[in-house]
């Protein structure tokens, strides 16, 4: 129980760590936005009366939520080239993660839409709002406000899940730590450092999500 920490050994690899942080952040932010967009479509399609929309949406959601993320990433990265679609590791990571997050965000948003009573929609329409206006002000906005905490947790989980993409060779933060470990044999230091980095990233990301909530929902609803 007497380990000599030598973080100095990692100093030559500062560039790698920073690049890793960059890709992890980029993946998280882009994927959160794309995933939210996919989720919105999926939630609308899932709540649709028409089976032609509802059934494919349900199949997508169930297929993604009941298979491992790692397998989905391997399918995109190693499988799609057989169909002539060759994506770079970081692009494949973004595509795979977006498809994954889209399904979860879709389910969360669907729950939000269901929380809005149909009588409120009818009330909106009878006040003279168009169908689009009703959807925006009466359904979408209150729905997102209601499920915002769940959505925010999902995005934080997304940030943590990006560590899986190193398996397909994308040079994210975890990938860089494994690389540094393979060069310095300082496993404890390498992984302790990125544990701290992930912690800081996650806390910063949570703060960002709270700020967005305050800007969009709290400040706006003030009289």
């Amino acid at each position: 129980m007497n380990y000599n920490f030598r973080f100095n050994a990692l100093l030559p690899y500062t560039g790698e760590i920073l690049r890793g942080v960059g890709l992890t952040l980029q993946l998280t932010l882009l994927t959160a936005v794309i995933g939210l967009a996919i989720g919105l479509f999926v939630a609308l399609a899932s709540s649709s009366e028409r089976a032609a929309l509802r059934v494919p949406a349900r199949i997508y959601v169930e297929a993604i939520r009941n298979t491992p993320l790692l397998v989905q990433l391997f399918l995109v990265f190693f499988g799609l080239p057989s169909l002539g679609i060759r994506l770079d590791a970081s692009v494949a990571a973004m595509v795979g993660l977006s498809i994954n997050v889209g399904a979860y965000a879709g389910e969360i948003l669907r729950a939000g839409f269901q929380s809005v009573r149909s009588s409120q929609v009818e009330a909106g329409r009878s006040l003279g709002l168009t169908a689009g206006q009703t959807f925006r002000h009466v359904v979408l906005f209150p729905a997102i406000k209601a499920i915002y905490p769940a959505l925010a947790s999902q995005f934080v989980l997304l940030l943590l899940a990006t560590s899986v993409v190193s398996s397909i060779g994308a040079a994210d933060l975890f990938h860089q730590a494994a690389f540094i470990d393979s060069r310095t044999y300082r496993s404890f230091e390498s992984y302790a450092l990125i544990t701290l980095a992930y912690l800081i990233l996650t806390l910063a990301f949570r703060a960002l999500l709270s700020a967005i909530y305050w800007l969009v929902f709290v400040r706006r609803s003030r009289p």
Partner: protein
Amino acid sequence: MLKHLSRIVSAVLLAGAVTVAPALAADLQQIISAGKVRIGVPVDVAPFGSNDASNQPVGLDVDMANAIAKALGVTLELQQITGANRVPYLATDKLDIVIAAMGATPERALQISFTSPYAALSSGVFGPDSIAVTKPEELTDQTVAVARGTTQDLLLTKLAPNANIQRYDDDATAAAAFTSGQAQLLATADIVAKDMMDKNPALQLKPKFIMEFSPCYIGVQQGAPELLHWLNTYVHLGMRDGSLSALSEKWIGTKLPALPTI
């Protein structure tokens, strides 16, 4: 105290020397007059020595053993051995010659004698004909898959600083990156490249350049100088006429370079 200790140590060393002292080795003339040579080949090291579907020993070392027996003009008594008993089989006079993908070390050379190298395992970069790369310095935009932290990774990082290296968790994933077309080249051991091509003939894993060679040596009992010299002559001639290189290409997939002799 120290004197006492050194006495014990030398007694132990002496005892060790006595027990590992080789039985009188059969030298070249005894082998020829006996009309048979006992050669050990690996049982579990493809492509050097393993058993085929009909349980017959096959491999580079098996071919080598047959060729040596033929050149000696005697019958071959083939014995399949494992890595652990390569040296003991010779040291206890159960075999005359061991051809078993064996690397030479000073420790092993205390107990047996090594000929000049007859084959080599190599680490290199492999890929299709369409990619014209012959040196590490020529690697720039081409993507090379490698398993992170392996000898190949360390060598490639050092030799080709401008290369676009994709690092994967293990050999299988790096190989998958190549077979799926995600990487244009694969840095691996030559026997792995050969094995992949044998299993999937659609793959093209031609050696682009070799980064490192690990030579393999024939082992003989100590106290058989004429046999050792004859084998060295045989290896030397095989190197010169290209037959050893052809053997290497047949089983390992790469040509044999000029290896330093012992």
